[in-house]
């Protein structure tokens, strides 16, 4: 029988349980402070000072509404310029007030942005800015009955429904729920793209009455971090997810059957297979909109109505069959590249798979255009093609040996884009500097049509492919982008002349076998302008008398008689450039590891058909390569002497604001820091900049980009020079959830081909996130290139081309840094797929590494790509990026942060990087190779501490090499902080004050009250027991 004594005992136990749990939970929650803060939208500390704050960097927004309006205007402008008109048979622009029917699931539930890094603010979208509402507000009469049917379908079919009843395809839960029967959101396996069937919708011809001016059909593919596409398994013509599946084709047929005008909007960032719709005479217009951002459909309306002429150009080649390209051979999507002996390694080793990028530099348009050039010239075995390596006219993969035909392979070339007007461009002059290091190219653009619009000047180059190259396996693309500019809006008949200042280092080729550095071959070189890469190459081939369809007058040629291995053998800062990725532990060439000689056979232009990449499945990791994969390479030693730690020199970091790198006072300041402080700083880097008390730095929070702040930070948390927006008289609480994530995705930005716009993007999206939300570090921009179209995270990156990607990213960096934002350019490097992104070992030739991915990153670290409009400015493009985030994947066999070749020899030495280097969410774990990473310049490990035993101040400081590295790394911490908004609003008396957040209050109150309760219940039990005994007695 249960008595009061029993009840009190049980209550005592339960209260004690809560007490124990809360006592243990407290320290755990403190160690996870940053993500918990983010989850609850709180801040667990603030910085207090004397009030004598210095505002080195000032926000341009003095109130919430100023910020919201400016961000909105910019987001729309960027989206307008990013859209690419792919086809237009007099269907666009439409007449304002047109009555149209929108078809396709994505017409109602479009993809506004990708998940995570560039996810748009849902509050903004839900607040009346949904696609169909935006189009309605812009003057389009949208068929309400059909839209309602899509809405009903969405509600009936679940999916990711928000409170507003909208479905945002790629949003949270998309990759993990597994509950969505339509399946497309996972994008793994063989899932089809999501689309509603016409029978499910119950559409009839009567539904279209009154709204038949046009059908606007929207097809889309969601994407985002951690997401993956794979080839095959769908019912599209090619079998790939990027082709239209049967449901989407049915929607298109319905539109063609019921409407005279059919307009297709492509709501995908990853290139779709569009040959069928391009060639369909009943599809009147195709407009690529990518992921247009939270306000993107206002821009769609502006373009549809002709308020703005489309001026975007593709930054990726669009091919007929997305699975057929050299890079796709070793794409890791179908699990064919796992190490055969992966099971022999421990979880700490983090060994799973590998990629051997045998395509070398022939990724994207470099492959298709170069092969086409050789087909035209009839050389290099270009026309013959083996089964499985080329595409049939119907876009399927050829299953027998045959002929490689450009028109079967390519749908839209890199750089392609139409306008509502026409432009004529002339190549006015070319002046190559005597030292070969630069060239000025002047181009005049004239609007020859009847509408206003912007044009893009694209300057391409071709360098000679010589016998030396063939002997030494130096590969050459027949065409490569050198630089670009965008004109202002030109009225009909108006002209603009622009001079582009080309960096000729980007013309040099990396010769790993022969010279072991960058070379310029002897022979004929060409520049060409063109509307796209194919057009420019056509112009060159015409000038070479190999073709008749181009314009030879849009080319310029010159000859360098001598082979040159000296001009570009030193970097811009004077560092000798030599092989660092072709030998030793940093090697990316698998052939250089003992036991793997001859494993990879890199694609060569000498024999297109004979050197087409092959898949090397089933390799086992052995020997030195296996040792490297185990993440413990450099033995720890002791005996470090002569290092001065924790000195009492009385300096603070505030005395070093904007101090030169060579200022001797740095050493005095650095000596104040202790090894434990360094370890604490390095170990607590998840969206956090740990304070360093000895130099008076109290710490800051940080946040993830590249699309703006995603830390649950919105106008509610915004401030202007220390005054919170929420305390200002005009604060609108209903818009408290508006933030900086409103612009289109980074790929859209690149497709604008507008450096000034990219600079402005950096100022607003990253820079103002820093200033309004007090996040000195914003993790972005993302500058990996699109090696192929199957990276689910491709939307966070710019382009397949290192120059378009590099100059766009460089402009973003410059804009952001002008606001004091300490950018973390990510993910250095070779993170071109999400499958096994943590652990996958990426191998390639040093030429491919340097001329493709690294060349893109290089532009941002060397502050290259200055827009012509800023030629006279001396306050920008002075310092390169001051922060970097390394990738998840291995570079070669070692962790990216522990690859000396990339992190020291190239990044720090050749490019002169002096900044903050952080890993990507590894914590201090063995997979990050902590001691090797510290040795090679890593200063922080994003994550929540770690359990690597040797990672203590005492152990690291005892090792002479690591002690010296720590001293250097401390400078890599302090220098960028002193040149950033981390110094904003603070002063030498600043100190950190811990705040009582709701979660802190929760566990502390639980400790207090459960302790009291346990005591009370225990006493009650004892009293009851005593009284019971007395009663019995």
């Amino acid at each position, binding site marked *: 029988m249960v008595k009061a004594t029993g009840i009190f005992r049980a209550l005592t136990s339960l209260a004690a349980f809560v007490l*124990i749990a809360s006592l243990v939970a407290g320290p*755990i929650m403190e160690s996870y402070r940053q993500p918990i803060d983010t989850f609850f939208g709180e801040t667990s500390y603030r910085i207090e000072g004397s009030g004598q704050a210095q505002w080195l960097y000032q926000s341009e927004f003095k109130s919430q509404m100023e910020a919201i309006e400016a961000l909105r205007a910019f987001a729309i402008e960027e989206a307008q310029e990013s859209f690419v008109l792919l086809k237009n048979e007099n269907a666009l622009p439409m007449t304002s007030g047109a009555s149209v029917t929108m078809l396709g699931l994505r017409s109602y539930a479009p993809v506004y942005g990708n998940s995570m890094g560039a996810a748009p603010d849902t509050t903004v979208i839900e607040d009346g800015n949904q696609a169909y509402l935006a189009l309605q507000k812009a003057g389009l009469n949208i068929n309400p009955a059909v839209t309602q049917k899509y809405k009903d379908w969405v509600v009936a079919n679940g999916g990711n429904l928000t409170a507003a009843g909208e479905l945002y395809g790629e949003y949270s839960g998309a990759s993990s729920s597994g509950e969505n029967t339509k399946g497309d959101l996972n994008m793994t396996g063989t899932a089809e793209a999501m689309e509603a069937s016409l029978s499910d919708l119950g559409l009839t011809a009567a539904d279209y009455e009154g709204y038949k001016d046009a059908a606007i059909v929207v097809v889309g593919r969601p994407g985002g971090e951690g997401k993956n596409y794979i080839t095959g398994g769908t019912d599209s013509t090619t079998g790939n997810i990027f082709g239209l599946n049967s449901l989407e084709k049915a929607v298109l047929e319905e539109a063609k059957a019921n409407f005279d005008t059919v307009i297709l909007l492509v709501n995908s960032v990853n290139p779709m297979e569009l040959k069928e719709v391009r060639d369909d005479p009943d599809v009147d217009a195709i407009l690529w909109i990518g992921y247009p951002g939270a306000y993107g459909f206002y821009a769609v309306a502006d373009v549809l109505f002709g308020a703005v002429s489309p001026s975007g150009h593709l930054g990726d080649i669009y091919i007929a069959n997305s699975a057929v390209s050299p890079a796709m051979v070793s794409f890791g999507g179908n699990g064919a590249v796992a190490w055969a002996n992966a099971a022999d390694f421990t*979880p*700490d080793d983090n060994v799973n798979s590998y990629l051997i990028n045998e395509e070398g530099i022939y990724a994207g348009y470099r492959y298709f255009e170069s092969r086409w050039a050789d087909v035209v010239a009839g050389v290099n075995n270009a026309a013959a093609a083996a089964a499985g390596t080329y595409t049939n006219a119907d876009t399927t993969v050829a299953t027998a040996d045959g002929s490689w035909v450009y028109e079967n392979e390519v749908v839209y070339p890199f750089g392609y884009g139409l306008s509502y007007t026409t432009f004529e461009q002339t190549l006015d002059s070319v002046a190559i500097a005597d030292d070969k290091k630069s060239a000025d190219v002047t181009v005049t653009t004239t609007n020859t049509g009847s509408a206003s619009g912007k044009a893009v000047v694209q300057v391409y180059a071709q360098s000679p492919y010589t016998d030396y190259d063939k002997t030494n396996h130096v590969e050459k693309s027949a065409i490569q982008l050198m630089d670009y500019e965008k004109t202002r809006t030109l009225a009909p008949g108006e002209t603009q002349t622009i001079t582009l200042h080309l960096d000729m280092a980007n013309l040099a080729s990396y010769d790993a076998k022969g010279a072991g550095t960058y070379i310029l071959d002897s022979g004929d070189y060409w520049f060409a302008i063109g509307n796209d890469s194919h057009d420019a190459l056509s112009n060159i081939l015409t000038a070479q008398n190999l073709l008749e369809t181009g314009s030879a007058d849009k080319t310029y040629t010159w000859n360098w008689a001598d082979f040159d291995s000296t001009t570009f053998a030193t970097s811009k800062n004077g560092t000798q450039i030599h092989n660092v990725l072709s030998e030793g532990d940093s090697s990316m060439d698998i052939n250089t590891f003992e036991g793997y000689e001859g494993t990879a056979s890199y694609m060569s232009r000498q024999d297109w058909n004979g050197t087409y990449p092959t898949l090397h499945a089933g390799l086992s990791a052995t020997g030195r390569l296996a040792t490297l994969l185990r993440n413990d390479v450099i033995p720890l030693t002791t005996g470090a002497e002569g290092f001065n730690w924790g000195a009492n020199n009385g300096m603070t970091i505030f005395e070093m604001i904007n101090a030169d790198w060579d200022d001797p006072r740095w050493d005095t300041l650095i000596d104040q820091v202790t090894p434990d402080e360094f370890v604490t700083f390095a170990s607590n880097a998840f969206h956090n900049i740990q304070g360093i008390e000895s130099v008076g730095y109290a710490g800051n929070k940080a946040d993830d980009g590249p699309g703006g702040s995603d830390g649950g930070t919105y106008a509610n948390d915004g401030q202007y020079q220390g005054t919170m927006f929420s305390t200002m008289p005009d604060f609108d609480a209903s818009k408290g959830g508006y933030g900086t994530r409103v612009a289109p995705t980074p790929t859209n930005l690149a497709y604008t081909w507008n450096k000034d716009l990219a600079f402005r993007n950096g100022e607003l999206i990253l820079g103002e996130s820093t200033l309004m939300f007090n996040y000195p570090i914003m993790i972005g921009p993302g500058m990996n290139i699109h090696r192929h179209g199957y990276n689910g995270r491709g939307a966070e990156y710019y382009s397949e081309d290192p120059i378009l990607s590099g100059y766009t990213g460089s402009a973003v960096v410059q804009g952001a840094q002008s606001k004091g934002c300490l950018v973390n350019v990510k993910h250095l490097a070779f993170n071109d797929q*999400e499958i096994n*992104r943590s652990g996958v070992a990426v191998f390639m030739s040093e030429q491919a590494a340097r001329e493709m991915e690294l060349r893109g990153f290089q532009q941002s670290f060397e502050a290259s790509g200055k827009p012509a409009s800023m030629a006279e400015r001396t306050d920008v493009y002075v310092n390169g990026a001051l922060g970097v985030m390394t990738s998840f994947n291995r570079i070669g066999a070692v962790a990216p942060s522990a690859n000396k070749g990339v992190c020291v020899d190239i990044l720090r030495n050749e490019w002169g990087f002096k900044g903050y280097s952080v890993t990507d*969410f590894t914590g201090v774990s063995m997979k990050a190779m902590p001691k090797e990473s510290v040795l090679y310049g890593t200063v922080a490990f994003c994550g929540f501490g770690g359990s690597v035993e040797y990672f203590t101040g005492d152990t690291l400081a005892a090792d002479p090499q690591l002690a010296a590295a720590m001293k250097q790394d401390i400078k890599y911490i302090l220098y960028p902080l002193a040149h950033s908004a981390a110094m904003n609003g603070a002063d030498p008396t600043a100190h950190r004050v811990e705040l009582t957040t709701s979660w802190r209050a929760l566990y502390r109150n639980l400790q207090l009250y459960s302790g009291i309760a346990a005591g009370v219940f225990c006493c009650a039990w004892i009293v009851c*027991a005593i009284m019971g005994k007395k009663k019995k007695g």
Partner: protein
Amino acid sequence: MAKKTNAFGKLLCLSAILALIGMVVYVVNTTTGYMAGLHTPIDPLVLILPFIVIVCALFLTLRPDACKGATGAVTLILSLLMAAATVFFVKGRVDVVGDMLNPVNHPETQVTAVTWSLIGIGLYCLSYLFTVVTTLSDKLAKE
């Protein structure tokens, strides 16, 4: 089990059995597969505390009158020991479960390890709750 053991005594026995299974899960989970690869140490408190509970509970199940007059106090202590063991079990798995929130590819072995960790924690929780129920009674023997 003694014939005179009452329902609370039987529940205490069940609690001991659950704790025992939980202990086996903890040891296997910690010393094999993914957790072994991480060199995760065995927390002695997660084994010693339930071991005491198991021994005492089985003893009381066989000799329900052994602590006559102090049975309630004993079961309370046992429940507290089980509570502490559960909390320490959870504490030892926070990092590996938290790591699952990191949106990168996680090896199948990690998913398995986390799953078995959660099973073990569930068994300890159930064991603890049963001991709490036994504290409601002053006796483990039938009247």
